[in-house]
């Protein structure tokens, strides 16, 4: 049965800043200085030609473009502040309007804690179908990012298209792959999207997928990603670039220095896109972090991440372009205390600074292992954050002076009409354990993890997302076959 529910976005009222306007201006100026003096590597002839025409100074042998600040600012001014990420089902459209905050899954994991056996194994296409199905059901999750894991059971050359197919067929929500990183794959992906919505013009009006790239920090981009994003932008498919500068490794140890790198690496490709396709929908993205000082590892959590999440949001607000902030993504290896601490802070901070998109739930060990339980538990964290960020409403009705007068000294509010009217606004857990001690013990000491396991299994057994028409399913398969013919040598 289709158990579809409306998407639960957050309209945050609480606001937290860590940078002063003066701090933001300093970071902005430093970023401009770096782009102009040092430049950014764009290892694509296509990209370099576009930048050169706009007035950038090009070093062909090193493929570096030094971009004057006027070129940067002119280009960035053309980027739209608001637009919509569409869903296959239009009731799942996401308005990026500067007021709402939407949650996605995390993405591109390579292993899975099997839901039945609990054992860690390689990820497959089936895991994409399952995690997309859970995404479709969970009202907290607004769009499917990634894909959550890699479909390692299909040929690498066309893997992103299989992944897209698995997602399109198992959720009607918006999809944002991070794997469309070559021009040919991007063309096929666009063909798939256009087939579903009824043509390339319709896709422009109703982009049911968008494309996220990674920057190659520090001060660099990737050829395939740039070229894939250029063709996507041309088709009106929104694109953004995510740097993940690690303080001490790919960024200075200081957080302000890291933010300069994050800004340059996220902003510079958008400059290219706006020069090539003025007004194309674009977004900022970022997952800045600090290196683990002992192993050199990607920490995926820690106070620096949370501070930079707020700071970079403020910087993006300054440019007036939506931001997708890397959140959750704990470094913990199991859904444990560390995962909860990491993901609570990492989820909260970007929301308090009003990010547009939050990526995302469900992966462990620095975005490498999918846990269906973690997915459900992260949704609960999000739900708490939603309640927090929406703050306290103060008016005559909520002050409830009349009710207080009526109940008076020593009474209680249980039977009041006012209580029944407003009690639904009180946060209710799904997996938090609040059973009395004895009942908990008698029930086999089951906590959040057990409940999350049961919930994930229940969703997979019961929820049937609106299927894609069979003719369209066939068309997707045909496109993938054509891609296989061209791309598998």
């Amino acid at each position, binding site marked *: 049965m289709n158990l579809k529910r409306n998407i639960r976005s957050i309209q945050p009222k609480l606001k937290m800043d860590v940078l002063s306007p003066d701090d933001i201006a300093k970071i902005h100026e430093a970023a401009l200085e770096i782009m102009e003096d040092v430049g950014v590597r764009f290892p694509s002839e296509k990209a370099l030609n576009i930048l050169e025409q706009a007035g950038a100074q090009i070093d062909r042998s090193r493929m570096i473009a030094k971009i004057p600040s006027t070129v940067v600012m002119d280009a960035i001014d053309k980027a739209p502040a608001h637009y919509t990420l569409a869903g296959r089902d239009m009731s799942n459209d996401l308005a990026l309007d500067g007021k709402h905050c939407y949650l996605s899954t995390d993405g591109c994991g390579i292993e899975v804690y099997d839901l039945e056996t609990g054992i860690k194994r390689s990820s497959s296409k089936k895991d994409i179908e399952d995690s997309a199905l859970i995404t479709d059901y969970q009202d907290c999750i607004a769009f499917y990012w990634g894909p959550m894991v*890699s479909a390692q059971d299909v040929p690498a050359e066309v893997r992103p298209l299989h992944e897209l197919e698995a997602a399109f067929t198992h959720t009607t929500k918006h999809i944002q792959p991070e794997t469309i990183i070559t021009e040919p794959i991007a063309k096929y992906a666009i063909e798939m999207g256009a087939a579903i919505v009824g043509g390339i013009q319709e896709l422009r009006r109703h982009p049911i997928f968008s494309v996220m790239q990674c920057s190659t920090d520090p001060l660099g981009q990737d050829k395939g990603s740039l070229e894939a994003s250029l063709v996507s932008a041309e088709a009106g498919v929104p694109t953004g670039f995510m740097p993940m500068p690690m303080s001490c490794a790919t960024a200075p140890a200081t957080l302000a220095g890291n933010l300069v790198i994050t800004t340059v690496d996220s902003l510079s490709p958008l400059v290219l896109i706006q020069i090539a396709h003025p007004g194309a929908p674009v977004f900022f993205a970022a997952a800045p972090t600090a290196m683990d000082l002992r192993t*050199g590892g990607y920490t995926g959590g820690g106070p620096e991440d949370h501070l930079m999440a707020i700071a970079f949001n403020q910087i993006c607000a300054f440019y007036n372009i939506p931001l997708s902030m890397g959140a959750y993504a704990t470094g913990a290896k199991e859904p444990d205390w560390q995962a909860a601490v990491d993901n609570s802070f990492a989820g909260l901070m970007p929301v308090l600074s009003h990010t547009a998109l939050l990526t995302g739930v469900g992966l462990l060990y620095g975005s490498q292992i999918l846990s269906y339980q973690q997915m459900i538990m992260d949704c609960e964290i999000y739900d708490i954050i939603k309640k927090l960020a929406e703050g306290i409403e103060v008016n005559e009705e909520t002050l409830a002076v009349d009710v207080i007068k009526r109940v008076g000294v020593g009474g209680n509010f249980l039977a009041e009409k006012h209580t029944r009217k407003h009690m639904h606004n009180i946060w209710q857990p799904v997996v938090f354990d609040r059973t009395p001690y004895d009942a908990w013990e008698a029930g086999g000491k089951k906590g959040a993890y057990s409940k999350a396991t049961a919930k994930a299994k229940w969703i997979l057994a019961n929820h049937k997302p609106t299927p894609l028409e069979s003719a369209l399913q066939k068309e997707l398969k045909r496109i993938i076959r054509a891609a296989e013919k061209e791309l598998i040598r």
Partner: protein
Amino acid sequence: MQEQELFAKMSHTILKGEIEEAGELARKAVEMKIDPIVAVNNGYTKGLDEVGRLFRTGEYFLPDLVAAGEAMKHALDVFDPFLKSRKTEKKLMGTVVLGTVEGDFHDIGKGIVGSMLVAAGFEVIDLGVNVSAQKFLNAVKELKPDILGMSALLTTTMPNQKKVIELLEEAQERQNVKVMVGGAAVTNKWAMEISADAYGEDAMAAVTVSEQFAATSVKNQANLTPTINRIRM
């Protein structure tokens, strides 16, 4: 300057990761006609041992270690021609050619592996990122390294490690080099599947594995010059 004083200063440059200064002192030693092997063993290596100890006890962090490795490399570069001319080529633990496979641009982990190997006394030739199978093969043919290390962080680029091994086999170079693989996506199982000689989960493992290779290497056994002490984690 007295020899003893120079050795103490050499050790200090490693301890503090003073890269330029480490090179300068090496040039000074050459001027003073001090045997490079003696300078390395009585000077720089003392610093490396201390760095290793401080890292073990948690006082030093990875950037300290990397800087120490860089300083060491700088000094060894200065001594290199002198050591070569004395035909003590196999002065080091061995040579490692390192690279990230084609299609893959992740280089942080590979860089750390490289620095740790340098610190452990290996000569490391880093081919960079996005290295094609042919380029790996050419490097093996030309540089004749003892060990080839390949990094892959993406499930889509892992198969390129296999490609390199197959190409080495075709070119009949496979028996001449030990192959170790690593990177986030890589597992021990994968390493076995593609018939690599070893898998290293992290940089420490890469060093341990390389040391084992060095210990069993025929080339090294024939070499009588003392090997440089290594940082022990």
